[in-house]
């Protein structure tokens, strides 16, 4: 041995032990080690190791050379850990061990470097402790760093950490995404349990991004998030509706108040002139189709988008109460990694996951009522009849003459008056929703299972079985190996939806049906057709046809996802996400004879349509991620690839020749079955992507993304394309000169991004020349026939959007006030246009790329403020505002193209041209328009000089949240400044005042201000039974459709814990929620959001005003 004083030797040994532990035992502690029992008598180490290998799954790794100085060992040990056994084996040997996974390396012992201890004259110790949240739940992956150094570690699955060889009496900085960082002084080696409080600063809320997470503090992209707490306050059916008014740069329009109907979503404006402008929806990593292909009989649900001319919205089949957060990715930095699918922004939906802890059972029940928010002031019977008589007088027609058809005056009882709005759509829709969930688990296994039932009836005058009922199940399972190297997460959402609706929205009838229209039913309860003397029905549009000519939609939707990951080396992780989506729809729409007017029945066969749609997609995304410190900064690298396959089939069959109306639901009861349209699509997609993020001391951050995409939607020549973006952020508030000079500024970040994204939303097979089957009931000559499916273009390419965004984030007064201003300039080029062709070409459209450029320039502002923060009382406000501007920048040869009369350079692409309305001619009582030739007969296109911009001028929302003890009040005002269609100002959009067409002739009271005699100055032309073709195309049709809407309000009360503890509840909350409660607008139609355009068949039910009361109980 060496000649060293004993004391020093002891110190050395201790140091050796500590250093060894520090260098070699990093991962040993976390292994769940087997217990060993060994009896060894003077055996060589090699033998002993072989024995250990036999008892365990561990293997040894060593060089035989090192055993030449080793001594034989003797010991008898029971139930010892591997580590203990090895320590005994190597006691007093010049050897040491290192365990990595299941490999034990035996190495030569290193001599200690004395300077380490002696220069400091301080004892280095190891510290262990545990990091938990305020409820005691362990936090996995929290970072623990010794202040002022780069020494650090992160917590394991139990929240435990161990820091080796650090100074005694040190200060630790503990941080975790979404929690407030904390400094903690450690005395001795046991740090105990360190609590981290959830950050209340919105800066530190977790934001989900593409293949990862970040916070608002550190993100370089333009991302907005909405959390479960906000979503759950809103009694809506489609998660997209919960975003209305809350997100800068996002427009969500509910197109109808009918349950299950479509929703229009635009992120930062319209990028494409005609093609898909829908964002990419991703639920738990599984992309979901953004437009539903139609079944062919589902018209009531409203248009889904231009590609499939389909109906409804896919997110109607997603249970809103299972959602944990929705993140909206807007700029190139956030979306370029989605390449060709990211041009219109991305909406990421993340579902709820189980948390470790005791089992929680949560019950949430709510019930409510929905009603029409307002009514239009329509003519009553007296006013209506006077209008009709006056029209006949003006036209010089004697309406009593037999040749004049005027059933409303001749046949119907002109003393009747019915308020059809009250009668047909004035009902109350009932809402019922019950949700139960069980969650809990350990760190090794966490689970959540939740089930929801939802039922919503209609406001229509229809039996209660006209309702939308949804049942859904959501589960999430999260598990990992004990050493935290392997993790697996499995989740699924399943929904069954049964929606029973009339085939046609009754709103049009409610508004336009003549006030003297007859009773709906006969005394015996049958439909009242009101036959005239000849037997012809004079009430053929009796709205109660809808009770029989109904539409039924049954949809099941399964979204399932599994993520498995494995940490190969510290910082290096491989993972793969596998997703599957299966949506099946069966719909049914009968036309029974009872809904056909009697005189037609002999000529009519019973027909019923049976539609189906199935969408099956899978996605595999293997990824490799690597994170390590380089210098003062941290680099994160992600490489991944995507394989996607989506098959869509839809179509319908129809049956004819049933024996009775009752048998129609079964297609087998039809005597003949014919084939309706069928739609089939397949979309395959593969890509490779990468992201590199470098964060230098949380001060300078650069984020690079790239993707190479291939899509089956393009011809072989143009299948692949590259996309990329760069994002940078400078947290200037971390600079000393800012800290010193502007201490009021608690946070300041300047960020910017630039990059390219693409769009392949053109539908499948567009590059192929195809012939499709022409569906016939009786095949021509007994053989099937083919018809061309359209004009193909084999040279189709990607539509490309270049996005530039610059933003500044500022926080004042310890981030109690947060301000963000973002400037957006997106330019889309290489437009994929269904180029309009003259009909001479055979088909009216031909899809091709055009060198047209569209620019969307947005100013986005958001403002969050904690106005009051006392112990029992808090008041926070948030405000957002977007000022969008859309403009056609370039369109070569526009004047000779088929868009010459539609688009205008440097105007928005949604611009409409209209005649200039001059007024009512006092002499003749007719409308006059600005015209070069004849004010009564303007010509197209020369006189269509007025340009109407239907894009919103600005929009946004103001939200306030006030809590006092257990009470919480939250309300959101949404506002939009815009111009819209406002047919109801001067005519009903379908018939001109005085004109009669069954079921469509009533007029708003505004038409009473009409011209009656020469010299009158009126706003409405003379009543007449014949139409006026031009007013529909004049600027009179457009008017202010701005509104401020109390979109949502909720009050909840958390019962005091002393009350509920008696009932053994964990918590109990009662609440009242309301949606669309109040609308302030000058709009004269039913609703400024849906802009109920009364023109034929598009009148739709406005979003309903909904109230619910509910109780949430935690057990």
């Amino acid at each position, binding site marked *: 041995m060496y000649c060293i004083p004993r004391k020093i030797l002891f110190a050395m040994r201790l140091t050796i032990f500590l250093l060894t532990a520090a260098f070699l035992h990093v991962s040993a502690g976390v292994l769940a080690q087997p217990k060993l029992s060994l009896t060894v008598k003077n055996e060589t180490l090699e033998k002993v190791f072989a024995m250990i290998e036999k008892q365990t799954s561990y293997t040894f790794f060593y060089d035989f050379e090192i055993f030449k100085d080793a001594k034989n060992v003797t010991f008898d040990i029971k139930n010892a850990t591997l580590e203990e056994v090895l320590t005994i084996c190597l006691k007093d040997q010049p050897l040491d061990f290192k365990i990595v996974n299941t490999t034990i390396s035996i190495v030569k012992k290193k001599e200690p470097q004395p300077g380490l201890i002696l220069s400091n004259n301080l004892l280095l110790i190891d510290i262990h402790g545990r990091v938990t949240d305020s409820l005691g739940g362990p936090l996995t992956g929290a970072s623990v760093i010794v202040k002022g150094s780069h020494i650090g570690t992160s917590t394991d699955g139990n929240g435990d950490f161990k820091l080796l060889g650090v100074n005694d009496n040190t200060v630790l900085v503990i941080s975790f995404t979404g929690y407030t960082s904390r400094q903690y002084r450690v005395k001795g080696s046991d740090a105990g349990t360190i609590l981290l409080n959830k950050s209340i600063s919105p800066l530190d809320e977790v934001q989900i991004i593409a293949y990862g997470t970040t916070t608002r503090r550190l993100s370089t992209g333009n991302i907005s998030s909405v959390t479960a707490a906000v979503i759950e306050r809103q009694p809506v059916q489609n998660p997209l509706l919960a975003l209305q008014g809350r997100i800068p740069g996002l427009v969500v329009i509910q197109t109808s108040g009918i349950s299950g109907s479509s929703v229009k979503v635009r992120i930062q404006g319209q990028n494409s002139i005609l093609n898909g402008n829908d964002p990419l929806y991703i639920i738990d990593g599984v992309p979901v189709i953004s437009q539903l292909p139609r079944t062919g009989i589902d018209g009531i649900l409203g248009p889904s988008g231009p590609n499939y001319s389909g109906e409804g919205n896919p997110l109607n089949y997603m249970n809103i109460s299972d959602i944990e957060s929705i993140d909206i990715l807007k700029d190139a930095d956030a979306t370029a990694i989605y390449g060709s699918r990211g041009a219109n922004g991305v909406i990421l939906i993340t579902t709820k996951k189980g948390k470790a802890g005791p089992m929680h059972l949560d019950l949430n029940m709510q019930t409510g009522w929905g009603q029409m928010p307002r009514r239009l002031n329509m003519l009553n019977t007296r006013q209506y009849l006077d209008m009709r008589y006056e029209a006949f007088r003006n036209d010089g027609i004697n309406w009593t003459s037999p040749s004049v058809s005027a059933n409303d005056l001749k046949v119907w009882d002109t003393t009747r008056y019915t308020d059809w709005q009250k009668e047909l759509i004035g009902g109350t829709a009932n809402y019922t929703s019950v949700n139960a969930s069980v969650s809990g688990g350990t760190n090794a296994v966490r689970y959540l299972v939740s089930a929801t039932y939802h039922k919503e009836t209609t406001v229509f005058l229809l039996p209660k079985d006209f309702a939308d009922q949804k049942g859904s199940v959501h589960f999430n399972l999260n598990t990992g190996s004990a050493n935290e190297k392997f993790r697996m997460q499995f989740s699924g959402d399943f929904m069954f939806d049964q929606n029973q609706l009339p085939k046609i929205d009754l709103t049009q009838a409610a508004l336009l049906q003549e006030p003297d229209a007859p009773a709906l039913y006969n005394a015996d309860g049958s439909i009242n057709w009101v036959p005239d003397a000849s037997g012809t029905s004079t009430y053929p549009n009796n709205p109660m046809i809808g009770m029989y000519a109904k539409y039924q939609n049954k949809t099941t939707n399964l979204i399932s996802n599994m993520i498995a990951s494995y940490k190969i080396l510290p910082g290096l992780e491989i993972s793969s996400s596998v997703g599957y989506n299966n949506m099946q729809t069966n719909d049914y729409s009968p036309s029974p004879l009872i809904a056909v007017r009697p005189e037609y029945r002999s000529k009519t066969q019973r027909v019923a349509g049976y539609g189906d749609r199935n969408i099956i997609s899978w996605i595999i995304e293997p990824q490799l991620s690597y994170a390590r410190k380089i210098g003062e900064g941290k680099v994160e690298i992600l490489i991944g690839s995507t394989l996607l396959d989506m098959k869509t089939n839809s179509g319908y069959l129809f049956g004819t020749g049933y024996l009775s109306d009752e048998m129609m639901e079964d297609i087998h009861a039809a005597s003949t079955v014919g084939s309706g349209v069928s739609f089939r699509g397949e979309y395959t997609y593969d890509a490779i992507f990468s992201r590199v993020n470098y964060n230098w001391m949380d001060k300078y951050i650069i984020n690079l993304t790239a993707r190479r995409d291939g899509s089956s939607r393009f011809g072989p020549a143009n299948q692949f394309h590259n996309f990329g973006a760069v994002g940078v952020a400078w947290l200037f508030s971390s600079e000393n000169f800012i800290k010193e000079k502007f201490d009021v500024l608690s946070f300041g970040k300047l960020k910017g991004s630039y990059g390219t994204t693409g769009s392949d939303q053109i539908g499948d097979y567009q590059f192929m020349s195809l012939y499709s089957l022409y569906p016939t009931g009786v095949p021509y000559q007994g053989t099937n026939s083919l018809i061309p499916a359209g004009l193909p273009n084999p040279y189709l390419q990607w539509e490309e959007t270049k996005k530039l965004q610059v933003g500044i984030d500022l926080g004042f007064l310890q981030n109690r006030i947060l301000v963000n201003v973002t400037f957006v300039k997106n330019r889309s080029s290489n437009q994929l246009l269904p180029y309009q062709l*003259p009909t001479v070409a055979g088909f009216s459209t031909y899809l091709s790329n055009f060198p047209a450029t569209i620019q969307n320039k947005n100013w986005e502002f958001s403002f969050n403020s904690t106005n009051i923060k006392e112990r029992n009382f808090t008041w926070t406000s948030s405000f957002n505002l977007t000022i969008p501007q859309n403009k056609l920048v370039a369109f070569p040869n526009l004047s000779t193209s088929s868009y010459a009369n539609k688009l205008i350079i440097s105007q928005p692409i949604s611009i409409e041209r209209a005649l200039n309305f001059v007024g009512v001619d006092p002499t003749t009582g007719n409308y006059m328009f600005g015209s070069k030739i004849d004010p009564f007969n303007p010509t197209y296109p020369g006189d269509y000089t007025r340009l109407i911009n239907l894009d919103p001028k600005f929009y946004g929302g103001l939200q306030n949240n006030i809590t006092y003890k257990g009470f919480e009040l939250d309300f959101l005002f949404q506002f939009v400044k815009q111009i819209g269609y406002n047919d109801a100002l001067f005519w009903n959009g379908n018939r001109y005042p005085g004109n009669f067409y069954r079921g469509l002739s009533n007029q708003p009271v505004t038409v009473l201000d009409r011209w009656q005699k020469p010299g009158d100055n009126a706003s409405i032309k003379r009543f007449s039974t014949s139409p006026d073709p031009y007013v529909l195309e004049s600027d009179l049709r457009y008017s202010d459709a701005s509104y401020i809407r109390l979109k949502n309000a909720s009050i909840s009360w958390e019962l005091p814990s002393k009350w509920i503890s008696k009932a053994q509840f964990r918590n109990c909350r009662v609440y009242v929620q309301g949606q669309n409660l109040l609308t302030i607008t000058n709009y004269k139609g039913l609703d400024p959001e849906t802009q109920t355009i009364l023109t034929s068949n598009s009148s739709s039910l406005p979003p309903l005003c909904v109230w619910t009361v509910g109780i949430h109980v935690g057990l």
Partner: protein
Amino acid sequence: MHKIMLLRYEFHRIKVALSMVLFSFGIFGCKKILDIGAPVNTVNEENVYKTDVTAIAVLTGVYAEMGGGGSGTIFAGGIGMSLLSGLSADELTLYSGVGDNRLIAYYKNALVAASLLNNYGSEFWAGSGGSGLYYYIFICNAAFEGLGKSTTLTPAVKQQLLGEAKFLRAFFYFYLVNYFGDVPLTVTTDPSVNAVISRTPKQQVYQQIIEDLKDAENLLSPVFLDGSLSSYLSTAERVRPTKWAATALLARVYLYIGDFVRAESETTAVINQTSLFGLNILNNAFLKNSSEAIWQIQPVATGRNTEDAFTFILPSSGPNGNLNQVVLSTQLLNSFEAGDLRKTNWVDSVTPPPGITTYYFPYKYKATITSGEATEYLMILRLAEQYLIRAEARAEQNNISGAQADLDVIRSRAGLAGTTANDKISLLASVLHERQVELFTEFGHRWFDLKRANTVEAVMGSVTPLKGGTWKTTDQLYPIPVSDIQMNPNLVQNLGY
């Protein structure tokens, strides 16, 4: 344990993981995954003209679509030529309760092409849902291109299909020139050519029609063929054009352009095919497989006969504003001679309660729904017209007795005595009159005859005001769709619109 082995073990795990990733990336390099093939409910263009069955199916598709699958097309039903041209002329009266602005515009000779929303009169050009005459011509052109390239079809099949496509193209252009005057003559599917095409003078279009029909005469089968283009073994359906359809149409074309010699010789060729064609009794004339039929279209909607039957046959409650919007005009009713069986067999009436008004309607097609196979097919070309063509051609050539003989064939079937007209002028007038009562509500014959005979000014000048409109000379031609004018700077609108 050997150290190499141990090393290998350690790296093996990394290798497996890495190779999994690389494998996935490797797939990326393979373009095969993006190769999706055509959807199963369609056939790729390359394959369509490879086999007889699919190539035949393309032309079959034209016929199937023409008849309408339960709704009207420009050849039948509520937007069909028989209805709309009948309204434009003096054949049909629009029911007063009809609110459809399009029908009103046709009826009052007040077609407009002011703007996209206010555009009535271009249905035959553009269709109402996209299937106008140019759509059908597109399919013919596509068929020429596809058939021309194909080398795998049975020669006889290819020949017949080429003939059908030529015949059809001529047939469609015939209606285009007669409705619109000078029209763009498209002979390719190339959208870049067709999008900027200008109008071709009517005479040139007629030249193309004649050329196509002559080719078709040579290519088409002289006997009726079944769906596989083989000769029928049993009862022949007359639902594919034959050589005689081409000849019959050619006779009509020569008549329209004033080449009476050729008109006569062509029509004689058809009339001489007595083994194939012969006049039927009136009530059976429009049945399926009627011996009078030169070309018919089979209805393809389950349980339905022709769409014209649905449009014209009135329910016992009379006309209405929805399905049954027209009745026969008094002008037409009054033009039947006393004792004309056509007035009793081809016209029917209803007198709904209270029994004041009687409504007359065309009753050539007598059945709407059917429980089994259709009993009536849509008649497109029939023998009676050939006799009338020859009568007119002979009269024009001063062959008085020949003209009289042909005219009397038609008259005698209608139970009428022989014609008393005995000079060219009066015979031509008699033929015109005979055409009015024989061919009423059939594919615009009356509308074209009025224009051809230069009587349109006189007749419509008095009839249009009765319908509530004002007649203008320019109303003779229908307007070109506004959207086509907007998109194609080389297209010029017809005068008066």
